[in-house]
């Protein structure tokens, strides 16, 4: 077990730079999730940590060891691949033993470790099967088992659940979380699914175009995002953004008017320097709307999505491209095509600079 630190890590393929100076600290025993849109460099960063890709510049340490240019097998990491990458010609037992065997571990110890991992992962009945004769979930377990027996300092997962069906995905999500508790190991988990990120992580790292947009505990990213990208990426359904203009500022507060919501004026607490007339955006999550909120807005409902416990109303027009999404609880059941008056508390509204996309606090 050990913590992992990246210091200005850079990756270039020839002239193309895909990772732009990543600084990252993952504490010992943390479950850290890399999340971001497809192509943002999650896999590349993970593979750099695994040693499967060279780190072009920068430094990487695991525990106290500098592993920047270390051989993959010497880093104390295990990786679970998206495609599982099980050896097709080996049985489950052989798949799990292989690394230890190559490493010269005594037979009795291999058997003990493999049996133990099989126990944890409920694979005991399948030990003599080939991967071909296993279901997707079982293969996934074998891949995890292969990672466990090596007792790595850091576990690496690259979208391990993306090949499973929805039901199994939820099941395995819970199992991996349990496994993390049981082993207490440092884990780094790549996904493009922000629900996976929110539910599993101690620490989420949001990546975009090879840069970290924000890193922190899920709750902080959700409640206190640093920029429009993180605010929009974390949370489902996504946050609503409204174009606004700063009307005036006074000690620790700015009055922002929202032309798109009928010109309502929203007082927002902010210490950053703003000038009147500056273009800003106000972010409001769907659940921030309440019938009795201080600031009332009128919306025209286009579609209602009823999920049973909650339903989401999609209202037209107020935003440029996306509809306004409002979470509805309780008994109020507006109709599609009808009008809805909702309110929100200005204290929960997040303020962003329209130009830079940065949060204004």
């Amino acid at each position, binding site marked *: 077990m050990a913590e992992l630190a990246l210091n200005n890590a850079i990756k270039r393929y020839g002239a193309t730079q895909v990772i732009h100076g990543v600084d990252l600290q993952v504490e010992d025993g943390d479950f850290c999730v890399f999340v971001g849109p497809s192509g943002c460099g999650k896999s590349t960063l993970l593979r750099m940590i*695994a040693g499967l890709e060279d780190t072009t510049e920068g430094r990487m340490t695991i525990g106290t060891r500098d592993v920047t240019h270390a051989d993959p097998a010497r880093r104390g990491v295990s990786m679970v691949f998206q495609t599982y990458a099980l050896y097709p*010609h080996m049985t489950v037992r052989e798949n799990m033993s292989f690394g230890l065997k190559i490493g010269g571990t005594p037979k009795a110890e291999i058997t003990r470790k493999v049996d133990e991992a099989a126990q944890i992962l409920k694979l005991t009945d399948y030990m003599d099967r080939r991967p071909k004769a296993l279901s997707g979930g079982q293969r996934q377990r074998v891949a995890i088992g292969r990672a466990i027996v090596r007792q790595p300092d850091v576990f690496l997962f690259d979208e391990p659940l993306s090949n499973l069906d929805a039901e199994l995905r939820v099941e395995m999500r819970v199992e991996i979380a349990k496994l993390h508790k049981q082993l207490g190991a440092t884990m780094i988990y790549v996904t493009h699914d922000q629900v996976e990120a929110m539910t599993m992580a101690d620490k989420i790292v949001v990546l975009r175009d090879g840069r970290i947009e924000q890193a922190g505990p899920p709750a902080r990213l959700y409640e206190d995002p640093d920029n429009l990208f993180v605010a929009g990426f974390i949370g489902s359904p996504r946050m609503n953004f409204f174009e606004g203009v700063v009307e005036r500022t006074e000690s620790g507060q700015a009055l922002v008017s929202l032309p798109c919501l009928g010109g309502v004026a929203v007082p927002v607490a902010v210490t950053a320097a703003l000038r009147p007339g500056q273009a800003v955006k106000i972010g409001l999550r769907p659940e921030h709307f309440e019938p009795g909120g201080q600031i009332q807005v009128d919306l025209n409902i286009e579609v209602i999505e009823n999920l049973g416990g909650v339903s989401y109303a999609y209202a037209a027009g107020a935003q440029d491209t996306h509809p306004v999404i409002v979470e509805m609880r309780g008994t109020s059941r507006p109709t599609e095509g009808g009008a809805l008056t909702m309110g929100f508390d200005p204290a929960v509204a997040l303020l962003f600079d329209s130009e830079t996309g940065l949060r204004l606090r």
Partner: protein
Amino acid sequence: MSMTDVHSAPRANHGADWDQIRRRAKSILVHGIVLALVGLMLLPLVYMVMMSFKTSTEIAQDPLGLPDSLYWGNYMAALSSMGYLRSVLNSLGITLSVIVVVVFAGAMAAYPLARLENRISRVIVMVMALGLATPNFVTITPIYVIFRDLGLLDSYLGIVLAFAALKLPLAVFFYTSFIAAIPIELEEAARLDNCNNWQIFWHVIRPLLAPVTATLSLFVMIMVWNDFIYPLLLLTDKDKLTVMIAVYKFVGNTGIDPTKLFPAAVLGSLPLLIMFALFQRKIMAGATAGAVK
């Protein structure tokens, strides 16, 4: 599903009957054509075996008929004067040696060629492709000259090396395309599992090549076994001749004696047929393999 079946059954009944008949007829037709083709292909073989059991008078009187009885005299004569056993052992030894060399050298050459993405490996693959496209006869003179200068004429080593060199492009081609289809993640997993390059090849790649190796071996076996030119070119010692050359020498080139030709032809191809029968299942598995997942 059963609901729809129940409801649609009466309406579709009439059509279904016709469908069934049409399908049955089609199946009979296809099978008939296949059987006819198989018969056509087997005909020469059957004829060869039939003729080999006839006396010369029988052949003269009734060349197409069945033999009156199984007459073993032709075989006795052939076996006693063509040095059959010796030549079979020669052919077997040469063929198997060539297969071993071609499989090992081919797979090991193909692995880096399939995985390295640089100009040199692409050029090598192209040269190998040229080797595949080169007509057999073009290489006769250079090979003779080179092997004469190396002092490898009339030696087992020489003939094995010559065949191996000639068949290597095929092996490299087989293996590069097959290895290229093996997911790179398997190798990366092995790298994390402590393997060096050689161990990755030996423990991960090589086992996956087993089926394609069986198919390749069959190809090489048939080509080497039946080859006529190179043994004739490189071997002179009577004790080193291959089966095909022994057959040729036994039958002679002055005229065709059916009582010699047919038993010799049967004897020449028999070992190949036996080997094919023995390894048939493995070979077919290789021919249909390919997907690693």
